[in-house]
């Protein structure tokens, strides 16, 4: 067995267990050290993973797991996201004396997302989705005393249970049709299969992944988790599983024969409804965390455009990866601002923020304008690539709809930026530790650098394969 191919995953698994053991036995005052330990684990995994980039892109473990550049980029993104979230946690959980074990949950959920990104097998896909979800339920409800957190946790759990159950059933159908569970077998056997059960199986798997993505029809948990869960957990759950699920979905559709299942129009409709519902729900939102939850839904809609174009435009996969990087940075930056200014929630709270906290205010502007897609921020290049790929694939109407949604999105983001810049402040604003500020700074600088230095990223993403369906 080629164990060396999964060394990063093994380190992450062992590291997660190590952090848990540490948190169990460490006294309360050294609990924050669990964060440092987690960062070390993440750094070690990244160190082992980076040399694998640009090496032979192949399937491993009896073709169940892909170690192509797409999976590796997804892995590196999940690792970076997890590291930034861990930094956000330390100050947030300061009052929780036994918060060390929360880091284990982040590491395990991150591992699930990483396995999702590499999944080239239906069984592995289901397992990875479950692994990404289960710690997520606990994270969503981590503030045990809070009713909102419990509500968010329950909602996330029920919807997740349903979606994952459906996904298992769908995987079973596809297995029955093709006689195998690996994607390579699907690619070979499915063209001869019956259309109806194939479509049903595919549809159920897509719904399961839609839950992780926060896409219609399994999107309803996102605003509640963003609103009720601990803010760092909310940031994590709206980003990391999404990265894994986007790549998993791309990998799956790349082997689905279009003649059998018309997945392209299906995903186009999914993209259209997701971005529109997310946006419409944002419009009159007065609570910034619910706003971020719904905007995460609408952003998923934009990302799905890339999958619609997969196979028809060479830019589709680079656009998706670039979009994921830009989205992650902007979302962490926005949540970082919320965490730094703990307690700020409604629009009125943001009045005069540009006077009291100019740097954080500017960071919020950059994060939001990147969501909108104002150049030269990374979000703009992402949208440009997404639009180009979508139009090249013949889905100009979808790009036009995305444009309409983008204009609408400016409205609700500006509803928060307006008070921050146009209204006088009412008293000083305290910030909440230096670590969230550091994270916000890293993300905003990242958004600008990724926008200006897009060439490096797009070029690198352009060389990524998506096995077994497509090679660069």
């Amino acid at each position: 067995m080629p164990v060396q191919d999964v060394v990063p995953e093994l380190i992450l698994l062992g590291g997660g267990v190590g952090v848990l053991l540490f948190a169990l036995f460490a006294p309360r005052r050294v609990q924050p050290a669990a964060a440092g330990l987690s960062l070390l684990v993440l750094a070690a995994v990244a160190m082992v993973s980076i040399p694998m980039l640009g090496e032979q892109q192949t399937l491993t473990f009896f073709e169940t797991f892909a170690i192509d550049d797409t999976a590796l980029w997804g892995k590196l993104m999940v690792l970076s996201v997890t590291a930034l979230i861990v930094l956000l946690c330390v100050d947030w959980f300061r009052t929780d004396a036994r918060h060390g074990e929360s880091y284990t949950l982040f590491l395990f959920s991150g591992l699930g997302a990483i396995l999702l990104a590499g999944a080239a097998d239906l069984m592995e896909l289901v397992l990875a989705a479950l692994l990404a979800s289960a710690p997520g339920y606990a994270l969503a409800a981590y503030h045990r005393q809070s009713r909102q957190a419990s509500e968010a946790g329950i909602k996330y759990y029920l919807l997740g249970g349903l979606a994952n159950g459906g996904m298992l059933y769908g995987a079973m159908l596809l297995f029955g049709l093709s006689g195998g569970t690996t994607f390579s077998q699907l690619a070979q056997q499915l063209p001869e299969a019956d259309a109806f059960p194939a479509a049903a199986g595919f549809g159920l798997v897509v719904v399961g992944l839609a839950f992780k993505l926060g896409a219609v029809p399994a999107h309803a948990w996102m605003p509640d988790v963003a609103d009720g869960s601990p803010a760092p957990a909310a940031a994590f759950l709206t980003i990391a599983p999404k990265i894994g699920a986007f790549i998993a979905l791309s990998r799956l559709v790349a082997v689905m024969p279009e003649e059998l299942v018309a997945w392209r129009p299906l995903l186009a409709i999914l993209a259209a409804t997701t971005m529109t519902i997310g946006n419409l729900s944002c419009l009159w939102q007065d609570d910034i965390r619910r706003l971020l939850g719904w905007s995460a839904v609408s952003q998923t809609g934009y990302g799905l455009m890339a999958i619609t174009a997969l196979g028809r435009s060479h830019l589709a996969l680079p656009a998706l990866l670039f979009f994921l990087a830009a989205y992650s940075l902007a979302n962490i930056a926005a949540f970082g601002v919320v965490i730094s200014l703990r307690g700020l929630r409604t629009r009125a709270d943001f009045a005069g923020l540009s006077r009291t906290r100019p740097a954080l205010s500017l960071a919020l502007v950059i994060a939001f304008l990147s969501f909108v897609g104002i150049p030269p921020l990374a979000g703009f290049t992402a949208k440009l690539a997404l639009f180009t790929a979508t139009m090249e694939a013949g889905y100009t109407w979808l790009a036009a709809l995305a444009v309409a949604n983008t204009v609408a999105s400016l409205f609700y983001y500006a509803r928060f930026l307006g008070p921050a810049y146009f209204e006088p402040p009412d008293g000083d604003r305290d910030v909440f530790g230096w670590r969230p500020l550091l994270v916000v700074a890293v993300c905003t600088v990242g958004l600008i650098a990724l926008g200006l230095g897009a060439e490096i990223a797009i070029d690198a993403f352009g060389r990524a394969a998506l096995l077994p369906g497509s090679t660069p």
Partner: protein
Amino acid sequence: MLTASIFIPLGGAGLLWLRRDMEPRLARLIALGVSMVPLILMAAAWIRFQPGPGLHFQLIESVPWIPTLGVSYRVGVDGLSLPLAALTALLFTVSIAYPVDLKGRAAEYFGFFLFLEFASLGVFLALDLFLFYVFWDLTLVGMYFLIGVWGHGEEARRAALKFFLYTLAGSLVMLLAILGLYLATEPRTFDMAEIIRQRPLAGGGLRASLVFLGLAIGFGIKTPLVPVHTWLPPAHVDAPAPASAILAGVLLKMGTYGFVRISLSMMPETFRRYALPLAIFAVVSIVYGALVALAQPNLKRRIAYTSVNHMGYTILGIAAAGAVVLGSETARALAMTGAIVEMVAHGVITGALFLISGSIWQRAKTYEIDELGGLAGRAPWLTAAASVAAFASLGLPGLAGFVAEFQIFVGTFAVYPVLAGIALLGIIITAALFLLMLQRLFLGDLPERWADWPRLERSERWGLAVLILFIILIGVVPAPLLAVIQPTADALIELLGTP
């Protein structure tokens, strides 16, 4: 050199934003000094620029940016962009010097102004569609904050948002059209000169029409053409006067610039087909803008609507230039030259008019024409400047507006005689509305409350004097300006081909 003129204002903006507690006087001085740099560089570019036949860009500076997508950082000038970039530099320097209610946030205000100058110069100097779009969107951000923070009261925030939403919608539709154009190039590139050479979508068809329509919507909103002009009046009325001057003088020109640089140059075949509808929209804007302006009791709103009218002349000239009719080359070249001159002339004239309205606001805190009157005795300088600007705007020979409008009308009469005839109505109405405005503002009895009307400050006198000087210079000796514009206009006509 061009790169420096774009990025030095950005550096200045960064400096001012970092030192937000700076003395207002010092902030103004720094901003003024920084804004002088592009002005001097533009003068130098003007001297180094060699007008010649054919459509070719000069003073090009270029570095690859995202080669995978065919994007590069590329700036340069030709006879179309050089006058507009020079106008931009001039208007910014004057507007920055002009006094305004800073609301205790001086350094931020001047920072945003320099940021806007950076983006505006970038739009005119960019020779890459991607870069062009980047700067285009940044102008929206800068103007949004200028109107929202330093505008007049609660209304300003709504006007700022309306401006941002409306023009972002336009720019995103334009982005889709640009991508449509980009996807038709082979090899894929955003390089303007290369796209002009390749002429993608020359075969026509639905796709070409859609791309043209997208561009027309994007540029039409910015210009603005009736019926997509509704963002303009509130934005103008509620913006601080120097920002209004920039909005009318510089930002509106981006729409007409886009029509010439992108719609006409990159898709000449399609432009020829749609020249007539465009001309009709232009005439509607001319007449409608003039009529609505006539009915406005609010000084600034009145000037704002005359912008709709004047930008209509520009579009009419461009459309006439694009209407390929047998034996009309000379007339169409004249119309094109006139349209480009009109962009510059309108920039200087309307810039001056909005600054004058700002001076009135600083003293009276009102824009209602009926509340003012008889100011000629108290404010001779203001009266003189307003008279020259108003007469120039209504097209009095010897002033800048005449040179432009004369050429546009002569050119258009050869191609669309009926439309030109209707458009002449606009000139008559404009004359009436400006004369009425001058009469009510400056003649008659001075109301009691304005008995101690303060005189113009030195910065106001200098700013207006410079603009008035240019209005007269372009009117009396247009030759240096025409020498730069004409070869490019001829080249554009050549690009459109023969019937």
